[in-house]
């Protein structure tokens, strides 16, 4: 099918959808060919379903009931641009026409039959081809006659080669060509009678959807709603009345749920009156309540309803009490309902969902205030260009109570920015979250960080990840950062930024891996950054960077003295088991391979050269080994040029040149050594080592976060050297401390892609860079850019050195116990109610409804289990055990084993430990790179910096890999090797139709897991006693 720049389109058009809640989109199997049940209304699609799916840009793996919803979704998302049909839609329309012609040719037998070459004329003509050389000739082939038709033939996957070969051999060609019937929501006529004017008059739903994007959007929106609700809505107010609010229903309607003739409102029954007042209709009257909710205030009330419905129950209780429900909406609505909440292609106000999900409550029920209110008075009064903030501040002057602070934050959530007061508030709350009450940030620190937020905000994640870092540490960081920004020499500033940030990166890695003792985290941090406080020369910078590195190495390996190997440290803590040592060596080898392929000079060489030059400046002669070492600096060569210099100037946009690398090539220390130079010259020569040192330190960071399947790191030796720390690539930007951007893409004369910005969030930047080198196994890998980087980060940022076999086994048992609970609930209505109640905090209404239905019929259980996200079954078991102690034990052996294991190893089996080891980083949602399993429903897709929220809410992968590893008997350390490899394979298998296609993720994950089981993935070192390892925890767990 025509693969229009799907990802490009996707980035700005896909925020609408929510595939995971589509009627049956959770099914993981291939396209079913069985006819739909007679009771289900169906619509006809001409030709084979496979061909239609290709042309409609729908995954081949979706079940039949999902075909029409996804077709509708694609039509309104990709089918029109400024009211005009796109190429996608034109091709789809043409294909339908061609398929109908072929259908006629197939006749009543529903099969295209061509008995021989002379009989093929009509078919070949419809297909847009002709017979070259004519029938019977030796060089008989098919060739294009009508490119428009031929394109459709190819794009739809018609078996042209089969036809060609049959004609060549003189045998008959037979091709089944039956029309496909797929289920329709309600009745086909419900939709075909909706349109007005020129768009009406179609009797086939496919034609109707193609020609009316409004109807297509309503169709898509309705499929995301649970069955009971949409049947109620169909009855009243009816589709025609809902049609004008299709956008709001699409964005914010999936949480609307009608049960027993009433709308289930977020907050519970006691909030019904407030909702009635807000909406202007009673929830008891859905036919009035729903359309009014959707239409009210340009969709803002629907957006508010949706957000409140998405947060978990305990958060929601806070958010609706004490008059907050109504007040917060008034805050959000403000005095201006423009722009509408339904404008554009993305949902609005992403940070309202983050705020409501993450806001912390004090014991007295008030929202947490980082620092104090006086500080926030300053923060919210800071100069702003935002009309929303100005209007709110004019309207509401007081900020004397924590409630008022939260009011302001709700109001600010409509502001499109990533550095406003709300973002500061969210970050400061997260910084405080990990700290004990008496160690929370002082008002002065909050003020300092807030005033420097625009510059350093991405680095504040370090302080939320490591709450042991004190206010003083944060203050020193800001001050050092400020002083570096003031370095006027751009080259020196770039090298200083790179060296400091690289050392901080190394510190984070070692701290995250537990190699820097907790007691030394704060002191080592301060000692590490202090040397960079006043840099005035390259020589001084070299000493500062070296000294700083020495501090963190000493903290991480105090017993090794000066002989510590940084690569060995980065590869993980020392291992005592053969498996651990093997994996450790493997990771060290991978790091070294990146350093080698980037032609980076070793730290040993650089330090030896520096020491030698220092000794020479004190009068000692140069020895031959020093000159040999100096020769190593010259081993790096620029790639052989393809373009002349003038061609580069003409053809490459004004991007960062390889100035930094070229300077290194010109560096020749042998001259000053042989001369020998003066003391000043020798000292200056030490300064010339700085670019090399910076690159090696930066390269260590790059190498550590190497994504699986990386190619740039191994094939573009300029990649690390080209990192643009001072942002000279783009005139006018000075965001030295921001997350790195990928530049130089698609510029053949520009020397290759590189990163510009700081080293914060490097794992994500590298994942963004390398993702396109994972060759997809399927054509439709639409969610690549929006999801794959987060997926890769969850495999490259964490390590699993501290996971014990008991913990690994517990992760598997939780998931199995979750499945046991589901199975047991099929026979026990009371248990089922508990299960559904727990899952309601994680599953969207439509998906929850289907799970509930499946649990009512034991025969449906087998189909349900594989569709459950591992994070859901894990959460179900954990929550159930907590809420109903002892009850989970009786439902199955996994429950019993888990109970036993938990009794023996309470810490290893605890939610906290597993969450920390198998959760994913949430840098956007939780402003930290700490791993955590969050109890949230899948986040929808948002635009801008919030787009990562969507990927961060996918938490199932590592839990699933852990279960696999446990079941196959791998020791926990093997996860360090397995997880990246499995994630790479999973990525290649993604076959999705839209961005929020969680079922496609689940399918890809399970397929990768199946390949591991079948031995098709990863030549993993054999584990010594696989069976023993697998049995051991169980045995132990069974031991009273």
């Amino acid at each position, binding site marked *: *099918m*025509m*693969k*229009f*720049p*799907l*990802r490009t389109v996707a980035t700005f058009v896909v925020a609408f959808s929510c595939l995971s809640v589509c009627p049956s989109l959770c099914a993981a199997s291939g396209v079913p060919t069985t006819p739909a049940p007679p009771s289900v209304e169906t619509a006809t699609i001409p030709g084979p379903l496979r061909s239609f799916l*290709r042309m409609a840009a729908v995954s081949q793996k979706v079940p039949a009931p999902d075909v029409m919803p996804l077709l509708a979704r694609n039509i309104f998302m990709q089918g029109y641009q400024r009211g005009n049909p796109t190429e996608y839609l034109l091709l789809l329309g043409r294909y339908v026409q061609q398929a109908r012609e072929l259908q006629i040719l197939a006749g009543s037998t529903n099969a295209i039959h061509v008995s021989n070459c002379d009989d093929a004329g009509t078919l070949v003509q419809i297909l847009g081809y002709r017979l070259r050389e004519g029938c019977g000739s030796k060089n008989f*082939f098919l*060739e*294009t006659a009508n*490119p428009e038709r031929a*394109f459709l033939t*190819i*794009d739809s*996957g018609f078996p*042209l*080669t089969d036809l060609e*070969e049959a004609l060549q051999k003189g045998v008959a060609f037979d091709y089944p060509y039956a029309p496909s019937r797929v289920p329709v929501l309600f009745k086909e006529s419900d939709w075909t009678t909706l349109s007005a004017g020129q768009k009406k008059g179609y009797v086939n739903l496919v034609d109707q959807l193609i020609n009316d994007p409004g109807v297509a959007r309503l169709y898509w929106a309705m499929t995301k709603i649970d069955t009971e609700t949409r049947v109620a809505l169909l009855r009243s107010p009816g589709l025609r009345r809902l049609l004008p609010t299709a956008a709001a229903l699409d964005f914010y309607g999936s949480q609307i749920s009608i049960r027993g003739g009433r709308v289930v409102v977020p907050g519970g029954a006691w909030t019904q009156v407030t909702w009635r007042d807000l909406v202007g209709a009673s929830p008891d009257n859905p036919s009035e309540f729903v359309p009014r909710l959707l239409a009210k205030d340009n969709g803002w009330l629907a957006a508010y309803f949706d957000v409140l419905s998405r947060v978990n129950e305990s958060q929601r209780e806070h958010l609706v009490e004490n008059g907050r429900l109504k007040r917060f909406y008034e805050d959000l609505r403000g005095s201006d309902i423009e722009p509408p909440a339904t404008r554009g292609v993305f949902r609005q106000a992403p940070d309202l969902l983050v705020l409501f999900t993450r806001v912390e409550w004090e014991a007295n029920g008030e929202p947490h205030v980082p620092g104090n209110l006086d500080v926030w008075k300053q923060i919210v009064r800071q100069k702003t260009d935002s009309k929303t903030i100005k209007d709110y501040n004019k309207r509401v002057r007081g900020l004397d109570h924590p409630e008022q602070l939260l009011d302001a934050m709700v109001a600010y959530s409509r502001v499109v920015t990533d550095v406003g007061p709300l973002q500061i508030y969210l970050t400061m709350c997260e910084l405080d979250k990990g700290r004990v009450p008496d160690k929370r940030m002082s008002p002065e620190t909050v003020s300092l960080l807030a005033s420097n937020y625009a510059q350093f905000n991405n680095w504040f994640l370090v302080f939320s990840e490591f709450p042991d870092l004190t206010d003083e540490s944060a203050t020193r960081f800001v001050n050092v950062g400020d002083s570096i920004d003031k370095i006027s020499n751009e080259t020196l500033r770039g090298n200083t930024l790179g060296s400091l940030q690289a050392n901080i990166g190394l510190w984070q890695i070692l701290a995250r891996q537990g190699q820097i003792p907790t007691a030394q985290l704060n002191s080592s941090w301060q000692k590490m950054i202090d040397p960079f406080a006043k840099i005035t020369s390259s020589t001084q910078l070299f000493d500062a960077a070296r000294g700083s590195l020495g501090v963190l190495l000493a903290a991480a390996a105090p017993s090794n003295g000066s002989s510590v190997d940084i690569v060995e440290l980065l590869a993980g803590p020392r291992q005592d088991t053969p498996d651990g040592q093997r994996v450790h060596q493997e990771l060290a080898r991978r790091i*070294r*391979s990146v350093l*080698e*392929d980037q032609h980076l000079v070793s730290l040993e060489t650089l330090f030896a050269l520096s020491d030698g030059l220092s000794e020479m400046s004190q009068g000692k002669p140069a020895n031959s080994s020093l000159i040999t070492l100096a020769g190593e600096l010259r*081993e790096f*060569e620029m*790639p*052989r*040029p*393809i*373009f002349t210099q003038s*061609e580069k100037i003409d*053809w490459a946009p004004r991007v960062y040149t390889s100035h930094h690398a070229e300077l290194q090539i010109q560096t020749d220390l042998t001259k000053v050594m042989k001369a020998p130079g003066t003391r000043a010259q020798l000292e200056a020569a030490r300064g010339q080592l700085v670019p090399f040192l910076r690159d090696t330190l930066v390269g260590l960071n790059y190498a550590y976060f190497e994504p699986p399947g990386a*190619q*740039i790191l*191994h*094939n*573009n*030796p300029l990649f690390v050297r080209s990192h643009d720390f001072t942002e000279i690539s783009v005139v006018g930007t000075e965001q030295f401390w921001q997350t790195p951007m990928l530049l*130089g*893409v*698609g510029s*053949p*004369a*520009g*020397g*290759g*892609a590189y990163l510009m910005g700081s080293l914060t969030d490097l794992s994500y930047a590298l994942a963004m860079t390398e993702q*396109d*080198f*994972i*060759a*997809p196994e399927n*054509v439709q*890998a639409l969610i*690549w850019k929006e999801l794959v980087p987060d997926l890769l980060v969850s495999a490259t940022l964490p390590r699993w050195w501290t996971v014990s076999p008991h913990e690994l086994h517990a992760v598997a048992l939780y998931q199995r116990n979750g499945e046991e609970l589901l199975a047991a609930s099929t026979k026990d209505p009371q248990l089922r109610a508990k299960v559904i109640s727990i899952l309601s905090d994680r599953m969207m209404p439509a998906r929850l409804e289907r799970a509930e239905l499946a649990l009512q019929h034991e025969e449906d259980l087998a189909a349900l289990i594989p569709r459950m996200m591992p994070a859901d079954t894990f959460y179900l078991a954990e929550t159930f055990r907590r809420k109903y102690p002892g009850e989970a034990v009786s439902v199955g052996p996994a429950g019993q084993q888990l109970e036993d294991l938990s009794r023996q190893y309470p810490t290893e089996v605890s939610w906290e430990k597993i969450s920390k080891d198998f959760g994913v980083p949430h840098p956007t949602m939780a402003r930290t790179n700490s791993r955590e399993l969050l109890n949230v429903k899948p986040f929808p897709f948002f635009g801008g910096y919030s787009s990562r929220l969507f990927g961060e809410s996918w938490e199932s992968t590592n839990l699933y890999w852990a279960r696999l590893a446990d079941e196959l008997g791998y020791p926990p350390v093997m996860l360090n090797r397995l997880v990246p490899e499995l994630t790479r394979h999973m990525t290649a298998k993604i076959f999705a139709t839209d961005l929020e296609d969680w079922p496609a993720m689940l399918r890809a994950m399970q397929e990768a897991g199946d390949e591991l089981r*079948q*031995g*098709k*993935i990863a*030549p993993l070192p054999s584990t010594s006693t696989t069976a023993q390892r697998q049995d051991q925890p169980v045995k132990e767990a069974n031991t009273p």
Partner: protein
Amino acid sequence: MKKYFLLLCLLAIPFSGGGAGAAAQDDASRIRVSVVLVQLNVAVTDNKGNYISGLGPEDFAITEDKIPEKTATFEEGNGPTRRLMQVGPGGKGFTEVTEKAGDPTSLEPSKKFAGANVFILFDTSNYMYRGFVFAQDAIADFIRSLEGVSQVALYSYSRDLSKVAPLTPDRSQVLRGVRSTVAGDDAALYNGLLLTVKDAARLTGRKAIVVFSNGPDNASLVPPEDVAELAQSTGTIIYMISTQAAESEPVSTAVFERMSKATGGKAYFSKGWQDEKQAFASIRDDLAHLYAISYYPAPNSNRGWRSISVKLVGKNLQKYRIRTRAGYRLLQTAQASQSMEESALAAKP
């Protein structure tokens, strides 16, 4: 001595293109030695472009960084591989090595060097949209026309690489692959080419990549320089087949011409996709007439780029032109090992 030579050849197989070779076990019967076998594909033509055949190893003089090199193997077109030992005064003569049947160190020429392996890389990006079906026809014609080629693979690229048909002797499978390609998305030619070169690099013998593309690249992360170097270092010939549409974009034209030339291949720009017969014939002839010459580099302290020069010996031959790769860079072991690891993965059942 013969055995020693053959052992070297065998050991060099993983990186016949010039990368770091493997090391034999150090036991009583074998010699521990690090080897690097450099394999050159050399086209010799007259001034009209006609191929000159019938030359022997003694007609070629090879230097690497101006250091004379001794030819180890020699093969003309699809003929058998001749293993050589230099003999005579100054080592200027050659004698063929006789390989004993059943000798475990013996290479099997028919398996190792007979015919070329051809990777077709098809641009299926938006840039090809209008001429997509005609390009498919052209590729199908090209595949049908390939003679003397052992195996063919079909890859396509847009933003990502798609391995449509793996390397196979079954042309029908590849033709089906051609008709199954789909069009659309951004163009990352050099990303796709890099991955294709890496797959080709694993193979011994003559290997060529034939790119069908209209040119523009708006999504690659690697520059063409890196791809060209890797292709040269692994002895992979790149042919570019394009249309005059590509000539409207000088960047692509320049890269196509220079990259193919640097690897010993050629670039073709025809009027349209329906008019590529001449290019196909030229590539076919090229693959059939290339001299495959290999040598073990003489000691050379240069660990960077090594320039290769191939000249014809004798006055009578000076009128002919030579086309081969310009040099190679010693591959990093890391790249090599990664490549091997991926290969091992692919080999799993």
